[in-house]
């Protein structure tokens, strides 16, 4: 099954992080991505720019500046992983959460 690992982070921390902290964070994500590759689970993923750069569109075309929900934690990126079942997906999710953010594990709908 395919799962999305959605990373929710306190944006303030990331916005205020210095260069060394960012370097360490990217290194940790590099190790996580390597783990996924080792297990044949890597199906892609992206880091998203801070939510302040988002534009939200509602039906009818109304545009608002900013993300859909103004919360302290914002979606900051995601990985797509292939896992045998939820237990394996949660194992990946736990490893990702170790890096310090909140991780939501969502199954991806499969069309046969």
């Amino acid at each position, binding site marked *: 099954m395919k799962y999305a690992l959605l990373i929710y982070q306190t944006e303030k921390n990331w916005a205020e992080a210095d260069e060394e902290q960012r370097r360490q964070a990217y290194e940790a994500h590099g190790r996580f991505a390597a783990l996924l590759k080792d297990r044949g689970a890597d199906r892609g993923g992206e880091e998203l720019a801070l939510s302040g750069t988002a534009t939200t569109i509602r039906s009818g075309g109304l545009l608002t500046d900013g993300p859909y929900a103004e919360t302290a934690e914002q979606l900051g990126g995601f990985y797509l992983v292939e896992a045998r*079942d939820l237990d394996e997906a949660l194992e990946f999710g736990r490893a990702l959460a170790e890096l310090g953010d909140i991780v939501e594990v969502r199954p991806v709908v499969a069309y046969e």
Partner: protein
Amino acid sequence: MSAVEAAFREHRGPLLATLVAELRSFDLAEDALQDAFAAATSQWPGGGVPQRPAAWLLSVARRRAVDRRRRDETLLRYLPRLITPEARAADNDPEADDSLQLLFACCHPALGLEARVALTLRFVAGLTAPEIARLFLVGEPTMAARITRAKQKIRAAGIPLGVPSPHDLPARAEGVLAVLYLLFTEGYRSHRHELAAEAIRICRLMPPAPETTALLALMLLQHSRRHARLSDGNIVLLPDQDRSRWDSRAIAEALTLLDTPAPVGPYRLQARIAAHHAIARQAADTDWPAIAALYARLEDLTGSPVVRLNRAVAVAEAEGPAAALDLLDVDLPGNHHLPAARAEMLLRLGRTAAAVEQFDIALALAPTDTERDHLRRRRESAPGTGTG
């Protein structure tokens, strides 16, 4: 009881578990088993009861499932099937294995506690949604919706049927034990022996581990008192129970289970407390100082105010009501046992007015008629407050 009813009671849980594991669909398993029992209801009275009712029901259910799947094929193609382990363990009892795998899926930590309890009762114990609704005093549509949502989550999120890996097993087993003890206490509290017995049956399926054994012993010890706990619909408290009516076989089994040394956990401490009660020939023989000490360790381990309450009751017996009353200076909002216990201590200290005040608080909070009747009788026993 008719043969069909008897077969239903005895086999529905294991049969449902086997069908879910084979068909990899909760809904198809439920429908197929219902078909099989319907067939039994129409065929057994005239044609005779088969020699092996469970095997008969299983083969009919399998055939009906094939029919249903063929009929609904277009629909079912789009439903993800449940994820099951690739190979079945060959050396164990396959029926128990199916139940165990289903139990771990139903008690998966990705499900909410209410959903876990409902699913376990539906698919491991085999109770119907209306029966579960009555047990937990919620409406049938609410319970049916809760079970449907939980089934959907298991299927869509890919919660596997199967025993967790050795690495995950201890944490996952703890979650299962919490559900089983909740089922048991629900049955115990409301005097529904069948539910309590079902929790014990399911606990026996679990892989052996110290806290699992301890919980089994604890439930056996509490369950052993089931016939002595009620008299004419009234609660009989432990000291007043007719101990000859305790189930001595269940007690003996529990004491044997506790006999082997094991690391101390919450269930083991509770089981050892229950064992002290079980071995006292009469209430006066109870080793209260030992029980109070075990409760103190349990409170250290859990930090629970409910444990504090029970510890206070033991301390009252070991050291007297004044020491116990000091321990009851805690906060436990909405719980009627705390004011009831305070009232009993105050009564023993001769502080009648304060006792009656606490009985009134307890009465306002008590959830069942049986408990309210008991509290009223206790309040009326206070000097100067009798109605007679």
